[in-house]
């Protein structure tokens, strides 16, 4: 269908913040099992989801991520005992804040993926990638970064040319 063809030309950038002990190992398992999944995901390894500061998610979107995946150990299985419990609360609150400010939560996904769940990793990444592909590029922060206070804005063709001539 024409719509799908159009969408396929957009390759979403997915940033995944994962914990070392569970999700990263699960992703590794997916790899060693030769499971195929979209190459759009860029994985960032943290010791624990408890180390993932909500500001990293914000920064990912600001720096061009179209979708963000945050994944860690199942509750009760955290290598550091309670890191993911703290993370769970933190992310529950942060996503509400992002939602209130106007970020579409379809682009932000949280999951528990254990070291044995290579298949679930594949499922999470594919899910998010295809959903974000359907939503299109995340333009909000990109457009925001181009805006200026009126007094500092580029308002003349000459000024614009100076910047474009790079």
């Amino acid at each position, binding site marked *: 269908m024409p719509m799908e063809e159009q969408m396929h030309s957009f390759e979403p950038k997915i940033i995944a913040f994962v914990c070392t002990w569970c999700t990263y190992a699960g992703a590794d398992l997916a790899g060693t099992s030769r499971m195929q999944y979209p190459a759009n995901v860029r994985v960032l390894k943290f010791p624990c989801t408890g180390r993932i500061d909500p500001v990293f998610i914000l920064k990912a979107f600001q*720096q061009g991520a179209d979708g963000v995946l945050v994944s860690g150990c199942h509750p009760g299985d955290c290598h550091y005992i309670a890191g993911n419990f703290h993370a769970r609360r933190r992310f529950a609150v942060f996503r509400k804040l992002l939602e209130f400010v106007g970020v579409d939560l379809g682009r932000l996904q949280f999951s528990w993926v254990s070291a044995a769940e290579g298949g679930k990793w594949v499922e999470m990444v594919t899910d998010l990638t295809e959903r974000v592909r359907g939503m299109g590029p995340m333009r909000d922060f990109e457009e925001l970064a181009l805006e*200026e*206070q*009126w*007094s*500092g804005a*580029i*308002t*003349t063709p*000459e*000024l614009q040319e*100076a*910047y474009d*001539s*790079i």
Partner: protein
Amino acid sequence: MQKYLSQQNFIALLSKLISDGKRVVAPRLDAGTPLYGPLADSAGIVLDQLPRRSAKETFFPVCEDIMSYDKVGQQVTLTNVTPASFPETILVGGRPCDAAAIPVLDAVFSWDYKDEFFLERRRKTTIIGLSCTQADDACFCTAVGLSPADHKGSDLFLTPVEGGGYACETFTEKGEALVNGNRDLFAEPNGAQALPPAEPQVEKFDLKKVKAWLDDHFEDSAWDGIAVRCVGCGACAFLCPACHCFDIVDEGTEKTGKRRKCWDACGFWKFTHHASGHNPRDLQPKRYRNRIMHKFKYYDDKFGQTLCTGCGRCIRFCPVGIDIATIVSEIGKK
């Protein structure tokens, strides 16, 4: 030269300037807050309240790019912002407290380093000032030697007259050029009486006496009491028509980015925080002392001018009600 501009022609003048492609900067409502900014439509002008921020941002932007860098492979390209690219601007409705601050800023921006970002905008802008018929108890322009009818800083000054419209007077070539370029809108003076100007209530400061005290009392326990309530934000400095400190920061990634110049304030604890970790103004009374010193002593020492036009914004919007008029008044009585 002296002219009369009817209310209708005033709006027509704005419309004409906008359609001529000039940038018309005037007080308008921005998401509900009165602010100076470019008018898209002459009907957007709002002249019944003092804009929240001063007119200085027409010449000294809140944040502006001054350079950009790009790296492709090992090749780095630096691109400067060209001052010649700034648009021609008419600043309309500059109150005396806002307009009078511009010549005061001229001194520092054309001192040992000619700040072309400021000066080119200055060259490209014509200022139409507007006299005030209302004042509140935070206004104190008269205390620093100005007045609601003072044309200092304006190229063309408008005074509201009875029956509507404005008596206009030009004070510079730019002002004359503006009138001459729009001759059909300006009529001969109609003899109407000017509406009585506002009367700020604060008593005139003895600025010489204030400076004399400041000259000799850098270390004085009075500063602790004066600044005890200051919380160290930048509201006073940012709203002030005369404050002009700025910071230069680089923002971007390894591949591309911009060097930006943006407002800074001496009230922030970081303002004098050295890379070594030492901070000569480590406590708020020292930072607040700097504010008063700069405005009523240092600027006079360097440029023979007071760095305050009595607009009262710092008094109205200080989170903790610090009243610079009271402070300076009391210093003058010591």
